[in-house]
């Protein structure tokens, strides 16, 4: 049963600062998860009909795009049961995915036979990054319809659709209300409405940090030792597309979260996105070349600039700065 959003609207009429939170949920977060549900459901249905790599790639790209637009939301249902990493296990600094995928196939691990069984498998063998290899790596992509790999691909797609469905349902039937009822007696997650604003602002800020430090920083490596092989989803040729989708998603999120149209922040995002599109290099292979590297670094600097502009324009208006995030630490 889908819950009406109407009570949510009522609950949010408390004050002007709540407008941003309400907007962010209704115009960005819930539609974003709905799109992820639809895209992964299509992927799972397509896989059930035709599991071959050739047939699945379009639905795969669409599902990854939907995820990249909301992947920075590290609160609520997506943080339960390790879903964030089960959906996309990246970066994979210890090369766990290769080992896990090869191991499952070599053992013909029966975990792929049931949803519950597959949900117990290491996140390194699941999700969008497993499909990046299975659908593109020459070691796997030629699999036939009767093969174990085919069953494995179907299981990954079904697992993604299950998680996306659960996340959307849990947002609609509970977590949106948890945000809306911040400060009420009994809400132990958010003790004040301010904490919700901070949590969402932290998602914005850390999303930009992730784009700069991971999506670009990992392939950049160091000047002496560039690492193009570390680009996200390079086997699918999606590295740049995912960066752009993420930045567009963050821009929409920032716009929804801000109380007034954040003109400076939007302009900073537009500069970063334009520079990214100009790269014309789907997998950041040009980090190997001094000039190409320079161009990638410019994108990185513009993303960092957008983060600072958002902090002073949106953070100040919301009365918050970024809190701790999962990227703190190593």
């Amino acid at each position, binding site marked *: 049963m889908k819950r009406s959003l109407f009570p949510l609207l009522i609950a949010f009429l408390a004050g002007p600062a709540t407008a941003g939170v309400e907007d962010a949920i209704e115009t960005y977060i819930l539609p974003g998860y709905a799109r992820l549900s639809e895209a992964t459901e299509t992927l799972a249905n397509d896989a059930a009909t035709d599991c071959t790599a050739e047939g699945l790639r379009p639905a795969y790209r669409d599902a990854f795009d939907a995820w990249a637009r909301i992947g920075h939301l590290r609160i609520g249902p997506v943080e339960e049961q*390790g879903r964030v*990493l*089960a959906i996309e296990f990246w970066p994979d*600094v*210890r*090369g*766990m995915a*290769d*080992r*896990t995928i090869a191991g499952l196939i070599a053992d013909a691990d029966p975990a792929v036979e049931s949803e519950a069984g597959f949900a*117990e*498998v*290491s*996140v*390194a063998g699941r999700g969008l990054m497993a499909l990046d290899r299975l659908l593109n790596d020459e070691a796997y992509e030629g699999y036939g319809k009767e093969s174990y790999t085919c069953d494995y691909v179907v299981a990954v797609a079904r697992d993604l659709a299950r998680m996306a469905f659960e996340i959307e349902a849990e947002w609609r039937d509970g977590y949106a209300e948890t945000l809306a009822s911040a400060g009420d007696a009994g809400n132990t997650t958010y*003790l004040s409405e*301010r*904490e919700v604003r*901070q949590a969402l602002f932290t998602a914005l*800020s850390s999303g930009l*940090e992730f784009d*700069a*430090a991971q999506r670009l*920083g990992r392939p*950049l*490596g*160091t000047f*002496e*030792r560039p690492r193009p*092989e*570390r680009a996200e989803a390079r086997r699918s040729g999606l590295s740049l597309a995912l960066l752009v989708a993420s930045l567009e998603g963050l821009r929409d999120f920032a716009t929804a979260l801000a109380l007034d149209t954040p003109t400076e922040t939007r302009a900073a995002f537009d500069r970063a996105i334009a520079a990214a599109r100009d790269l014309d290099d789907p997998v950041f292979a040009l980090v190997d070349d001094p000039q190409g590297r320079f161009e990638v*670094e410019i994108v*990185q*600097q513009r993303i*960092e600039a957008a983060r*600072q502009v958002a*902090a*002073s324009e949106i*953070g*100040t208006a919301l009365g*918050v*700065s*970024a*809190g*701790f*995030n*999962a*990227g*703190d*630490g*190593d």
Partner: protein
Amino acid sequence: MSRLLLVSCASTALCALPALATEKGDILGTYADIAEAAYGDSLVAAEALGDAVAELLDAPSADTLATARQAWLRARIPYQQTEAFRFGNPIVDDWEGKVNAWPLDEGLMDYVDPSYGGATDENAYAALDVIANPTFTLSGEEIDATEITPALLRDTLHEADAVEANVATGYHAIEFLLWGQDLNGTEAGAGARPWTDYATGADCTHGNCDRRGEYLRSATTLLVDDLAWMADQWTAGGAAREAVLANEDAGIDAILTGMGSLSYGEQAGERMKLGILLNDPEEEHDCFSDNTHNSHYYDAMGIRNVYVGSYARIDGTVVSGPSLSELVAESDPDVDAALRADLDHTMAEMGRIKAVAEAGFSYDRMLARGNSDGEALITNAIDALIAQTRSIERAVVALGLDQIAFQGSESLDDPNAVFQ
């Protein structure tokens, strides 16, 4: 990638915080005293490890190896309690990789089981095996490793080829040299390196026992040197102490940043949650020795120490003084009470993991796929760490530190070296 901090508080208007009875300078003094004591204890314990290693190499036997392992385990206790200083203090964070880098591709150093595999996409030198190879090529350069010296480990091998998993120095390198790989997967048992890996002449197992001994001696020497340096930074006039005392609000923020970043991104996420999600026994912090339960326990204790302003030294004396807890309580007693309760709750959950592991159900076994009891133990501790992080954020707000942070024109959060 640290939380926003403030650089400076040039305008007094921005710094108009409530006047409080507990002096911030005194709290920072306690904080620096705890750091000085804990790094000092780490040094003493590392020197004892150095002595035990010397005995092992002088007279290799099952007994001297066991004694060296015991010394390593003891050395971890004060060191892990210093980790709360890491993320709030750039001088510590920049140095930390020399002594506690993890995870590691141990095949860089010594022989490994065939199941380990070889070079990977991420690391071309994952199976270099320096102990067996006196000369080799590294990033296109011919390396003469006929003598395994502290300088070779520090300058050439550590983070070779700019790969962080090429760990050649520090506690975990020494741990590997004392225990060897834990090949039991998620079954019972730690690494089982035979003492004969350090035997002389015909008794030597796995070859190159003399080079292995040189490696162990060099790594231990470096650990002692590095800890001596850090302990010195926290003494009166030392750079780390001066940095913390230079700006009171920035110093208080550094305490909270260290607590929050270690609790959340590092310990709850990187060190604990990832292990469960990967079902990987190597995803435990002290994987060779099966000492992970202690490493988590004393990390959590270190976070609590800096908040309550009290640390029990390894000789039993207690270093304590005016605390951050008192300061937060003056601003908002509820926030302080909740944070203290959260820290205590984390200690209780970590204590459970420690008790169960010491009773024989080791941390790596808790990580096995489908082991719901182990998963619940670890998940409860993760949840406790996440809860205390939220309370730490509330303490930041209670002290008004976030207001300074976002009103400041710049952030201390040095936007990554790559942007420079």
